[in-house]
């Protein structure tokens, strides 16, 4: 082991996976660097080995998979999520949420979807829409390729930065025509982060809610999937003021341990979780109605 870090830029995914598996500890995957470099610069992280996956063609591109999913390579940057015609047409919720990510154009140009998800950061804007869309993620670890629901990845902290596994692709079923969607980000500070975020999807039948997905972020250390609570309250009903108030109350009640940080104090965050949920649902319903 050396006092100074070393660096490798594998040419293939297989090489990268083998290399990571061979490093006992201290190997850190880097691509755009937007998540990692602030910690390196501040001395919070001091990796022994950088494994630069930026050259791996296998991790690039946005395609349609044989089973009809949108397959988004892990190196896809936020800017591509905002502008790619396929993402805009088939996953407008994701394309829109990517415009709300912090850091400005400079960060949107370099920050990857893989880095965003692997960071497992409760205040980030990409996981809530993807969880609402029931996305799956694909990993390579050693010789193994694993596919799992994003929900399972988010529940497992071993998938964070510094993991031996490489996130390769995000797979999402295209949104059906007429599906209402919205992403609400409530910003109370001048910074990049929301104090409460909500991603909503809703299907209407004759003006009544037929199906709903709802995910709330930035209020607790994990995202809150409020879909079941929302369905129990709303399916079969019109989304009116009364239903909205009931939803807000139910969502706030799901926030057991609210975050208390620069984005606001815990009790207020808990209340705002309900507010963004109500707003997101209202906007999604309005969009479904227009559709």
């Amino acid at each position, binding site marked *: 082991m050396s006092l100074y*870090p070393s660096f*490798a830029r594998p040419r293939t995914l297989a090489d990268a996976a083998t290399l990571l598996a061979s490093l006992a500890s201290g190997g850190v995957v880097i*691509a755009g660097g937007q998540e990692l470099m*602030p910690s390196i*610069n501040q001395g919070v992280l001091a990796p022994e080995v*950088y494994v630069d996956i930026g050259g791996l063609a296998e991790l690039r591109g946005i395609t349609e998979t044989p089973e009809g999913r949108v397959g988004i390579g892990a190196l896809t940057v936020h*800017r591509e999520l905002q502008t790619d015609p396929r993402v805009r047409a088939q996953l407008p919720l994701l394309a829109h949420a990517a415009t709300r990510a912090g850091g*400005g154009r400079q*960060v949107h140009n370099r920050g990857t979807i893989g880095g965003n998800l692997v960071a497992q950061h409760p205040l980030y804007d990409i996981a809530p829409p993807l969880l609402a869309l029931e996305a799956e993620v694909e990993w390579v670890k050693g010789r193994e390729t694993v596919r799992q629901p994003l929900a399972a990845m988010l529940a497992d902290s071993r998938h964070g930065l510094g993991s031996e596994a490489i996130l390769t692709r995000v797979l999402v079923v295209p949104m059906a025509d007429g599906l209402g969607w919205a992403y609400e980000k409530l910003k109370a500070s001048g910074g990049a982060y929301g104090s409460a975020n909500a991603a909503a999807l809703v299907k209407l039948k004759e003006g009544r809610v037929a199906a709903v997905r709802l995910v709330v972020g930035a209020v607790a250390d994990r995202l809150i999937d409020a879909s079941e609570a929302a369905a129990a309250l709303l399916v079969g009903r019109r989304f009116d003021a009364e239903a909205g108030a009931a939803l807000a109350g139910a969502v706030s009640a799901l926030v057991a341990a609210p975050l208390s940080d620069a984005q606001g104090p815990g009790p207020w965050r808990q209340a705002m979780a309900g507010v963004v949920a109500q707003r997101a649902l209202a906007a999604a319903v309005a969009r479904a109605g227009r559709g």
Partner: protein
Amino acid sequence: MDDLAQSVLVQWRVNGVLHELDVLPGLSLLDVLREQLNLTGTHMGCMTGHCGACTVMIDGRIAKSCIAQAATLPRAEIRTIEGLMGPDGRLSPVQQAFWDEAGFQCGYCAPGMLFSAIELLAETPDPTDAEIDSALAGSLCRCTGYQSLRRAVRAAARALKDPNPD
């Protein structure tokens, strides 16, 4: 198997000039531009990606050089604020607009504001105020209160549409 390197050879064209450099793993592009190439117009404000004072263009897209790791750019076309003026030493139209509208006071934020305006106007020649605000959102200015920056971007948009007004 890939070799683990203690330093990485990179080939960059910086403001049109080709450089071959050995860079240390972990170093930011900002460090290398300022310390190895003496291009100190790219400013260091925070090193955490918040302030935008370190903004450059990498392969035609703007980026914060403090959070781009130099070694991850084996080959790149890089443009810094030093590369904005014309060969005759004249300010570029966007720089001129910021000058005319007193867009800056101390100028520390200039790399972020200028590059953000340049990228915005290349894609959106007629931006709304909301589009200007969102384009500048990755850069902080401690002096101006942002009003003059907005004015400068509007003036730059006019100048780029009609380069020779009389």
